[in-house]
């Protein structure tokens, strides 16, 4: 079973040379720590920076330089700042090659819910709806089950949707799955996790193509 860093590390393997990548808040943010050797990628943060770097050293924080999670950050050489309309032009116009974000629920058709729990939590969608409606390549990073042990991979989302039929791949603490044929198509198991454990933790239709599902190589 993976921890959050493990999920991030596995997703980092999906990065390709030359990718512009938008990382959501939470587990996705950790992906930046695991960029494979020898490839160049740039991180876009939708509040207006391309070429986002690491957190600043203590004392070097700049209130004018934050990411979409409102965290103080630094800028890499070759970075650029821009307004919010230009930022979402990059996203909507498919100039960002990969979007990684968290979710509360994913449905087997690729629907995603991650912005609202009616009556309980209404923080807003921020940029998530633009991201999921626009990106060609969306990977969801999340735990397979929620805090109450319920599966987050469902036949149909119960929460208000963020986007429809848009998620391409899900990486959880238990497995890597592609969304296809109206199901979660099992591609890899987390180290030490059995197929049965994944079946058990998945409420939606899990497609298991044979008995030899490889273990992740991370």
């Amino acid at each position, binding site marked *: 079973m993976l921890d959050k860093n493990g999920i991030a590390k596995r997703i980092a393997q999906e990065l390709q040379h030359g990718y512009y990548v938008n990382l959501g808040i939470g587990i996705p943010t950790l992906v930046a720590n695991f960029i494979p050797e020898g490839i160049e990628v740039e991180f876009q943060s939708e509040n207006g920076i391309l070429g986002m770097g690491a957190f600043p050293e203590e004392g070097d924080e700049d*209130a004018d330089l934050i990411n979409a999670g409102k965290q103080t*950050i630094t800028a890499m050489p070759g970075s650029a700042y821009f307004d919010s309309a230009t930022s979402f032009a990059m996203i909507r116009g498919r100039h960002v090659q990969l979007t990684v974000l968290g979710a509360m629920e994913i449905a087997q058709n690729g629907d995603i819910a991650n912005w609202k729990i009616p009556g309980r939590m209404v923080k807003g969608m*921020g940029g998530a709806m633009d991201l999921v409606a626009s990106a060609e390549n969306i990977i969801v990073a999340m735990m397979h089950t929620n805090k109450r042990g319920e599966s987050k991979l469902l036949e149909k989302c119960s929460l208000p949707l963020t986007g429809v039929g848009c998620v391409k791949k899900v990486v959880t603490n238990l497995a890597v799955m592609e969304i296809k044929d109206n199901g979660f198509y099992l591609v890899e198991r987390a180290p030490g996790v059995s197929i049965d454990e994944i079946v058990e933790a998945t409420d939606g239709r899990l497609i298991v193509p044979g008995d030899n599902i490889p273990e992740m190589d991370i």
Partner: protein
Amino acid sequence: MAINKQVANVEEACKGVRSGMTLMLGGFGLCGIPENSIAELVKTGVNELTCISNNAGVDDFGLGLLLQGKQIKKMISSYVGENDEFERQMLSGELEVDLIPQGSLAERCRAGGAGIPAFFTPAGYGTEVQGRKEVRMFKGKPHILETALEADFAIVKAWKGDSSGNLIFKATAKNFNPLMAMAGKTTIAEVEELVPMGELDPNEIHTPGIFVQRIFQGEKYEKRIEQRTTQPKV
């Protein structure tokens, strides 16, 4: 001769902002918010405001100060998760809230300033945001029709400005500020440094002065940091 937009102070800048008006306020989180103007609105006690702003500040800073004083009737935002008082007022029904995808919010402000009354975007299709909006397919993909946003006053904050209203923003404090500057019937710009006309390089201007009606240098800036994240010194 360029047109002079300079006003003496925040009081003069905010003159004419009245209860019931629609305001746009620049900033993302607490980054790039018009601190001095917000403090002035708190002071004047103007209320029943509709505020268009990506966020609603935190409990004791930014737009949170206007929420505390119950000066806001309605918020049009994309993310409001940092503010407990906001959540309380919303859940109790005291505060109307219109949540909009961040990219649509930005583009709708720009459209308002650019004389584009409506445009199609894929964001929000198939979600609550779609509502009764028109849906149309382009290249096999569903899009929804979003309309322009405008405001009685747009209140923005820049790093540098000159007396003709030209603005330069710093780093990610740019965010919604240039877009909202375009969309205000009257646009108020507060700047950290106001320089004489001709001192800014016309090549480096982010917001041309035509979009700004009043400009002043803010008295002081706290520039509070919402999430101070650092790594140890090496």
